[in-house]
């Protein structure tokens, strides 16, 4: 086949059309990606308004690397809410769907009294838990409002040092399992537990 024949062939036409489609698609996506970009600040503001229903001031709290890692999850970010003195944690829990490798990321508002600087910080409970994102959790939609509200309804047990669990058919007072999504529930509970553990060990001081 000569070069001229190649450029007239069906193979060349197929290649050219495919490349053109891919280029146009890539250009379109690049433009829209720029137009519809969501900054970290915008994401945080969205989360804060979905939690508080109004604008609040959130100051980032710096943590050392070893203070962020736990055996069942990670602390991604912590904010101190100026208005009410509570702490907002963004944490990722492991142990979700897909052989326990799936992850669920949540925002957890830890309610407390006192100040960290004053050394009189006391954990009083969880004010709210809001969903953020997930990795490979097909049934995340099964985690409904009742599931997330459960975390904020057991202040006494949390203040007493309790942690949540997600055991199917379990009878524990802090057992929280959404029907049809027990592994995603486990990852979500782990995310909340990471926030609790971090607050207890890093902010208050002591064993998790």
């Amino acid at each position, binding site marked *: 086949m000569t070069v001229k024949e190649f450029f007239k062939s*069906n193979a060349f036409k197929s290649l050219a*059309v*495919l490349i053109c*489609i891919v280029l146009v698609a890539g250009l379109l*996506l690049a433009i*829209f990606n720029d137009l519809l970009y969501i900054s970290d600040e915008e994401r945080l503001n969205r989360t804060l308004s979905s939690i508080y229903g109004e604008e609040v001031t959130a100051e980032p709290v710096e943590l050392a690397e070893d203070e962020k890692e736990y055996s069942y999850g990670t602390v991604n970010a912590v904010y101190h809410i100026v208005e009410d003195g509570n702490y907002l944690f963004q944490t990722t829990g492991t142990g979700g769907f897909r052989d326990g490798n799936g992850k669920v990321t949540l925002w957890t508002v830890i309610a407390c009294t006192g100040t960290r600087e004053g050394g009189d910080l006391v954990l009083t409970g969880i004010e709210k838990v809001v969903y953020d994102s997930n990795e490979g959790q097909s049934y995340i*939609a099964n985690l409904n409002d009742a599931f997330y509200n459960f975390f904020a309804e057991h202040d006494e047990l949390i203040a007493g040092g309790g942690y949540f669990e997600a055991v199917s058919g379990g009878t524990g007072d802090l057992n929280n399992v959404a029907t049809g999504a027990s592994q995603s529930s486990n990852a979500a509970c782990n995310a909340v537990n990471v926030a609790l553990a971090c607050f207890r060990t890093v902010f208050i001081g002591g064993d998790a």
Partner: protein
Amino acid sequence: MNARKYGKIAYDGLITNNATFKLVLGTCATLGMSTSAVNSFGMGLSVTVVLLLSNVIISLLRKVIPNTVRIPAFIVIIATMVTLLRMVLEKYIPDLYDSMGVFLPLIVVNCVILGRAEAFASKNPVLDSAIDGVATGLGLTFALTVIGIIREFLGSGSFFGMQVMDFRIGFFTNAAGAFFVYGICIALFVLITNQIDKARRAKHARMLRVPSHDKPLPSPETAPTPDGEVK
């Protein structure tokens, strides 16, 4: 003539070839997303938008795309539309974006979309393909929403997120419950459409049997015998 043709395309997409209840396509998303009516409705509308856009683009390019590479070309176009939809949903409807989870990117491989691209859009003009996309999408939205309403009501005791009952039957939020409700819905849909078809055929047959002349047909009593005598 055109209105009749477009009406037929729309009726096919909505009823005769309903993607969910008749062709049983896109089952993965149907079963996974129908735990609540809102999610089902959102998923249905998302698929409708992708179907409309991909059908229009594929129909426009149908004479340009060589037959041998049509499937990869369709996949690239559909994937682009789905990614655009993802961006728009994440920006403007984040709640729906979050609730759809992994099923949103999976629209790329939804066989309803590729099926319509291959079977219809690649062979028909733009307007026909657009109508087909919208009709097929709305048929899918209807089916998903019906399944979502039933599963949400029985599984969570709520209707479009509003709590209306205290009871909950966990079975209906599981995969097994999804299959059960899906099967029952298919059976009912086929039963109803068959009855309508039967009634339509009977009406058509009656119309064909109506005599074209005004003279009444002779009754058996007055009908002439073979030898010409009247009884």
